[in-house]
């Protein structure tokens, strides 16, 4: 049944879309150059930056896939979302100050800009841009499909019409206002997500008869399910924790927010407050999955056809329409804020990073071409999402792990260790891409799967880290000295 038959839900979603449109109009008047488009003119205050970093990381996967994973595998997937508390701390401690200060010394608008400044030469910039483009295609494809599916559910329209509405709003505010529109919609979206998660946690406990009752029901079904490792097992859970914790530092849509901050001093409380805000959002991930599985086991609800229906089914059955409306708006918010960040990253890679790595210069009309690139990327990703769903799913699956394995060593370690070299940066990025892609492909075709539940991204991250440190060790002696400003950034 389309949710439009529950008008409150449809009204919440439509109000949300109108607000996004309005923010796009506001940001259009304030976007005059590439710095405005890619790093919001370095104008963000601490609150906006923190909430934007949090909400761009909490994608549709967190609001739909997360509860679905808990419904299917129990506590295993909690290790992913619980990694946020240490992950945000690592991001701030390893990169916050250094990335932001580097942007004080040079015109740094993108992550490949920072990599080029750190290592020199064109290879590291090109390798980083390539990793970002590959990850962006996968992430964008999955977010685009999710936008369509949510709007089909809410408005009862066809997938084509749903995509037209959702992507139309997304395209407008991303093209018009670039990342400036993105971060202010992120702020709006982040606040919705937190309110929605807090409310859902309360209703989930109510539905399951309290946490103790939920635990008892699930224990009777399968003690492993509600045990700390879930049904995937301990090594899977622990490898998820490692790759998600270190991977937080490697998510370009999160760490580029450091470049947008107005004052470096405003970093101070970010790690703590962003981690705490993400904890609130994780309540939804945890509570819906456990409560829904509990009521299904207790016979109060028929089993779900697919685990990803856990969140929508729970909202329709156990929350008042206004809460369901806010959560559906929050869901759309989570998806669109991530899609906006990736469109911006992709446009930057295509218009700025790859030309700079290839020809050593960029277009004089960078802002105009960035807007064109955003539209083209959105169109290409939509075509991929609709007609090459296998490829999109593959790229989407390995997105987080690829970014973690490619970016953690080369950027997070590279910005803190003077002996890191450009050759090591390129080598570790290549290893991360090849290992992730090959193992995912082999696993999908049933040819080979890593034993003991080991996560592919975690395996690639460990290898990439070894390659990065090992190659730096070998090539460090012949490396050119660091420029004075980069040396100062690493030593401060």
């Amino acid at each position: 049944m389309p949710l439009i038959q529950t008008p409150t839900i449809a009204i919440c979603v439509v109000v949300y879309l109108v607000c996004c449109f309005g923010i796009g109009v506001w940001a259009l008047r304030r976007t005059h150059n590439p710095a405005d488009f890619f790093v919001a003119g370095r104008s963000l205050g601490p609150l906006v930056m923190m909430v934007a970093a949090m909400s761009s990381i909490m994608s549709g996967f967190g609001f739909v896939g997360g509860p679905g994973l808990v419904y299917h595998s129990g506590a295993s997937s909690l290790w992913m979302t619980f990694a946020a508390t240490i992950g945000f701390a690592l991001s701030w401690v390893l990169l916050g100050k250094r990335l932001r200060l580097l942007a004080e010394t040079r015109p740094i608008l993108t992550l490949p800009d920072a990599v080029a400044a750190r290592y020199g030469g064109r290879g590291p910039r090109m390798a980083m841009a390539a990793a970002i483009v590959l990850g962006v295609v996968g992430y964008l494809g999955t977010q685009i499909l999710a936008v369509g599916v949510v709007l089909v559910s809410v408005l009862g329209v066809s997938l084509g019409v749903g995509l037209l509405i959702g992507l139309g709003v997304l395209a407008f505010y991303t093209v018009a206002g670039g990342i400036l529109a993105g971060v202010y919609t992120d702020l709006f979206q982040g606040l919705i997500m937190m309110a929605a998660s807090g409310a859902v946690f309360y209703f989930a406990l109510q539905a399951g008869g309290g946490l103790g009752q939920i635990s008892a029901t699930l224990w009777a079904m399968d003690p492993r399910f509600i045990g700390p490792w879930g049904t995937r097992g301990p090594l899977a859970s622990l490898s998820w924790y490692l790759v998600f914790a270190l991977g937080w530092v490697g998510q370009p849509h999160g760490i580029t927010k450091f470049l947008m901050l107005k004052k470096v001093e405003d970093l101070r409380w970010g790690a703590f407050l962003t981690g705490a805000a993400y904890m609130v959002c994780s309540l939804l991930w945890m509570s819906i999955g456990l409560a829904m599985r509990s009521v299904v086991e207790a016979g109060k609800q028929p089993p779900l056809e697919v685990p990803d229906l856990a969140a929508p089914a729970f909202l329709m059955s156990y929350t008042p329409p206004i809460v369901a409306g806010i959560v559906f708006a929050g869901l759309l918010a989570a998806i669109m804020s991530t899609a906006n960040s990736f469109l911006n990253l992709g446009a930057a890679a295509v218009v700025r990073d790859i030309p700079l790595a290839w020809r050593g210069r960029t277009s004089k009309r960078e802002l105009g071409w960035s807007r064109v690139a955003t539209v083209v990327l959105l169109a290409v990703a939509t075509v991929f999402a609709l007609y090459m769903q296998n490829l999109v799913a593959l790229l989407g699956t390995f997105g987080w792990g690829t970014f973690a394995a490619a970016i953690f060593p080369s950027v997070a370690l590279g910005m803190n260790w003077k002996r890191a070299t450009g050759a090591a940066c390129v080598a570790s990025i290549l290893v991360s891409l090849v290992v992730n892609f090959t193992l995912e492909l082999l696993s999908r075709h049933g040819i080979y799967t890593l034993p003991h539940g080991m996560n592919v991204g975690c395996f690639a991250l460990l290898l990439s880290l070894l390659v990065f440190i090992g190659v730096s060790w070998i090539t460090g002696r012949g490396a050119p000295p660091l420029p004075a400003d980069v040396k100062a950034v690493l030593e401060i």
Partner: protein
Amino acid sequence: LSGRDPNDRWVLALFAAAAAALLLFTVNAWVLFGVVACAMLVLSLAVGFGAARPLPLVSALLAGLFAVYAVLVPLMAWVSRPDQPLQLFLGLPAGTALLVYAVWPIPLAAGLVYALVFRRELLTPEKLRQFLAGHGRR
């Protein structure tokens, strides 16, 4: 590697930990894998804190966080026995309660310590002024 960068030894330790983690994974020694994985997180924090590492608050954070992780992972393994009758702790089985009430919130301490030492050591107003005077574009 020693002698050129104060982070050399910590990066080497990270290298050793990554190699150990791969080895432990291949033999499915998952308790030790978990401890080593958590050690990698603490080592990464140590690399990021850099010159602030000797501060008592930062030293205590790094040592405390590693100690907590090193105890929690084996403890979770020890208390999570599916063949035992269910005993709830704040609404959850003991092992899951450790995950939800300890593994999840305790690392927030790292963000708190970061905030507390930020102006005192990580980026004092004097350091920032000198940096901008020497290297700032504006």
